[in-house]
């Protein structure tokens, strides 16, 4: 089945130690998104790629970076994680950015910062 896969499902890192979360997709979608979801809150969009074109949300901290080496893979890099960055990180894809193009989500990576 075509899907969005996030690895690992759980990640523990130390305060200030860089961490990378990965996402892969078999849907061949042009657009990939990263969302942050904290406990009991709605997902918050961090940034997205339309093909290789990177689009950052205005309020996404500089501590968060992303890479998309090819259509199938996208990475979220947190350069210096703080305690406030503990959250579920969700990757999603869509075929285009059109309003009629639904998002397909992975099951997320839960990040713990110690």
């Amino acid at each position, binding site marked *: 089945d075509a899907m*969005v896969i996030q690895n690992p499902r759980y990640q523990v890192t130390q305060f200030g130690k860089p961490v990378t979360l990965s996402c892969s997709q078999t849907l061949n979608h042009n*657009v990939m*998104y990263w969302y942050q979801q904290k406990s009991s809150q*709605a*997902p*918050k*969009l961090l940034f*997205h790629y*339309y093909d290789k074109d990177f*689009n950052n*949300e205005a309020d996404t901290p500089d501590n968060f970076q992303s890479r998309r080496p090819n259509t199938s893979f996208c990475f979220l890099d947190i350069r210096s994680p703080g305690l406030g960055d503990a959250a*579920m990180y*969700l*990757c*999603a894809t869509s075929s285009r*950015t*059109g*309003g*009629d193009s*639904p*998002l*397909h*989500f*992975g*099951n*997320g990576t*839960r990040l713990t910062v110690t």
Partner: protein
Amino acid sequence: LAKTTQPISMDSYEGQEVNITCSHNNIATNDYITWYQQFPSQGPRFIIQGYKTKVTNEVASLFIPADRKSSTLSLPRVSLSDTAVYYCLVFSAGSARQLTFGSGTQLTVLP
């Protein structure tokens, strides 16, 4: 940017029909309305999408009045497994910046 407003929570009993309404007063002409379901520790899952009038699929119906300022997700005969958070999103072509989730509705189905 179309802001959405939903009830924070709703309770229902098994076998009942549940209707969750989302308000989006400043919806734009090109905006589509999409609903997602999220279980704990999982990513949101697409349920249904519409532009106007009524849309029905195998799991839900979506009712959109003529002015499109609100929409209602209808879940027929809910079961315990429908307990989840339901999000309404309104966004238009060409702008992923509008893919902002509202607060969502926590639906709890009771036996």
